[in-house]
């Protein structure tokens, strides 16, 4: 699936998007897999309560299942307006 990062999450991980091969069942499982890869992911996901997630461009949460998801995005709380 396509994994996207925005704002300081993108800066900490060092790239805006990547293709990830994963059999993770939930968003949390996917984050666990990413964190286990490299320190930069651990730095970005250190405080999950400070992050928001969208699945296929819809706001979701970390317990959500990933079955059928094509795009998952991680970002800090939004500051529009």
């Amino acid at each position, binding site marked *: 699936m396509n994994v996207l990062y925005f*704002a300081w999450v993108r800066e900490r991980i060092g790239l805006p998007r990547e293709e990830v091969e994963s059999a993770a069942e939930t968003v949390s499982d996917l984050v666990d897999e990413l964190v286990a890869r490299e320190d930069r992911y651990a730095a970005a996901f250190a405080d999950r309560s400070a992050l928001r997630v969208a699945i296929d461009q819809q*706001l979701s949460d970390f317990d959500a299942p990933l079955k059928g998801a094509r795009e998952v995005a991680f970002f800090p709380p939004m500051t529009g*307006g």
Partner: protein
Amino acid sequence: MRILVQEAPFDLGAETKEFTAGHMDIGAVVTFTGVVRDSEKAPLQVMEIEHYPGMTESALTEIAQEAQTRWSLGDVLVIHRYGALKPGEMIMMVATAARHRKDAFEAAEFLMDYLKSRAPFWKREVTAAGTDWVAAKEEDEDALSRW
């Protein structure tokens, strides 16, 4: 309903005029405009606004549709910019048109409250002291609970 996500500046007067034109059944138009304000830390050089192309448009459309189901509105306009903006530049505007002002005012406030914390934009302040992401405020999240 019109939703625009763009880098270019917009003309508030022209947009408001066009939005209002041709409606004979509305008695109230409310507009709100967000402007780049100076940083509290040091003089602001640039406000950089990042967004999530695709999700931004769909989130704004959903918020505007929700406003239309909650209030009796003739029309809704949302324009939100991204990219590098200077202090004093207009970031965004919403306009609501309704038969009566209460619907127009309330819907505009609702749009602003939702747009602040449910539309995927992130602001970053660039000053001589460095670059800082603008943190979301708890009160912005709390503001949603009144709707």
